[in-house]
């Protein structure tokens, strides 16, 4: 039987403010359902405040949902022990600077991960570290001894992706993984992410505001707006033939190379 890798059912998350939650209610994620299979790249698209990052945090068990359920291979993720779950599901976060302890050297980061997840001999682990760093086009001998603050944002983001690959999970959630990477390197990282799904049958949840990047690598896209899913479908359908007015506007406002905006002089 072919099961869904991740299945999200009627997921909602409401944040409340004030004393015992009597203040404002913010519905960050509103009745969201979708499912995804291994070997897929799913784009979770939305602008700031659309709830895409909250959805990712829920899937990563970093937040408890207000209602709804998330299943990993048919099992509710809340019944799974954390260590087992995180061996299968890993995330790469938006801000690389706040994701790593700033007093670490890069090798400490990998040591920790290695101790936590892979009970493998030391020499094999260090071999594997080199492998994953080369995958993201970094030179192991150059970066491993460096402190976090000696690296650029783009390098850090690639290191985090490498760290995630080191665990070798089945599912990788990436939240704006290329926001600090330059254009020339960005497509290389995107190609790598695509390859992970094609060759290694990983499920990639690609969370971004950048519909161009998502269009380049995603098989399916889910467009979120104010906590709701407004449109989902194959990447081609969503981008080339959008149905929802929000998606239409989003796509028409993205600058393109082949055509120019119609610039109206009257305001």
């Amino acid at each position, binding site marked *: 039987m072919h099961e869904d890798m991740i299945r999200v059912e009627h997921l909602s998350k409401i944040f409340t403010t004030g004393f015992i939650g009597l203040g404002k209610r913010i519905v960050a994620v509103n009745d969201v359902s979708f499912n995804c299979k291994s070997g897929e790249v799913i784009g979770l698209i939305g*602008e700031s405040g659309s709830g895409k990052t909250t959805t990712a945090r829920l899937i990563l068990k970093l937040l408890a949902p207000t209602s709804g359920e998330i299943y990993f291979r048919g099992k509710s993720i809340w019944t799974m022990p954390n260590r087992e779950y995180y061996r299968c599901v890993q995330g790469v976060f938006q801000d690389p600077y706040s994701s790593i302890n700033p007093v670490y050297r890069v090798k400490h980061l990998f040591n920790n991960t290695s101790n936590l997840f892979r009970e493998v001999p030391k020499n094999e682990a260090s071999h594997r570290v080199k492998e994953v760093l080369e995958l993201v086009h970094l030179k192991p001998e150059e970066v491993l001894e460096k402190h976090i603050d000696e690296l650029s944002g783009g390098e850090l983001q690639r290191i985090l992706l490498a760290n995630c690959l080191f665990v070798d999970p089945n599912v990788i959630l990436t939240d704006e993984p290329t926001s600090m990477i330059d254009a020339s390197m960005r*497509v*290389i990282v995107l190609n790598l992410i695509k390859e992970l799904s094609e060759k290694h049958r990983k499920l990639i949840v690609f969370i971004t*505001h950048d519909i161009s990047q998502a*269009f380049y690598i995603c098989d399916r896209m889910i467009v979120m707006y104010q906590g709701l899913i407004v449109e989902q479908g194959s990447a081609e359908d969503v981008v080339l033939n959008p149905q929802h007015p929000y998606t239409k506007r989003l796509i028409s*406002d993205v*600058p393109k*190379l082949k055509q120019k905006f119609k610039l109206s002089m009257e*305001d």
Partner: protein
Amino acid sequence: MDGGNHDILIEAVDVKGYYDVPKGYVRAVDGCTLKLRQEEIIGIAGESGCGKSTFGKILMGYDKPPLRMVSGTITVNGVNIYSVTWNERKRIWGSSIAMIPQYSMNSLNPTRKIRNLIVDAMREKFRTGISESEMVQRAEHRFKDLGLSSTALDMFPFEMSGGMKQRAVIAISTLLNPKVLIVDEPTSALDVSTQRLLLELLYYIVKRKIVGSMIIISHDIASLRQICDYMYIMYAGKIAESAPMERMIEHPLHPYAKLLLDAVVTPEPEIRKRKLEGIPGAPPQLIKPSIGCRFSDRCPHVMDRCKSEEPPYLALEPDRFVACWLYGEGMGTDARRHDQS
């Protein structure tokens, strides 16, 4: 006026701007040449660390240590900006040339209302004879012109959205109708719809002659493409290629320009049809750059000559310059034929 050519607002020739650091100096801008005409919008594109923002600062005449103008000349609106004192430059800033630095919309003092910010700016930055009340009046008018209500003047920066703040910053910087406005990364950290409105606004202020002309510095080539007439592509402190926008997009010549344009992802059908390549490797350290072409380490067309000699910045067509040995020295026509095949 310089040679009676009233049309040219900025003429920068072989400009070098270095940062002094303990180990020597970083050659952030190393021999760049640029020309800006009346009513023109030009874009300077490049990746992080290529020197594009430093170039903007140098063009302003803002060479505060550790940045140092080393050689070359910059003429802004007929004035050689590095031949005048700092105080005289202050008179030029705001009226002849103004700049909106990166992140400026997040640099507004949160404890001051926009109205007070304008007064502050007048007093400190723009040394003019205009009275404060007249300035505020002008600001009110300008705010309306740029689609902000005049009540925005009495707002604190944190009460405004990103798009409003960006508009307010543009309104304040253009109060004296500068001949040249330099904008550094105007669209970063904005949602796409706000981004689009901002690009339209920048276009509008040039077409309505609120500013004479504009230089936009950005890594986002697709955004530059929307409103710029001419584009410079910088790599490692040097200009790799400059060309009118359409020709640059359709037919880039420099290998770096080609690869960079190829790596731009947009939601257009052809993007999914092939695998984009990107450019493996990293730009060189600008503290001790190698002799020869700075792109030679990453260039797919590298020749022996590229490693030892620096390519000249040559005119291939009127209005089009390329610094690459593929097109160098007397083989101009050949090179172009080679490129079209």
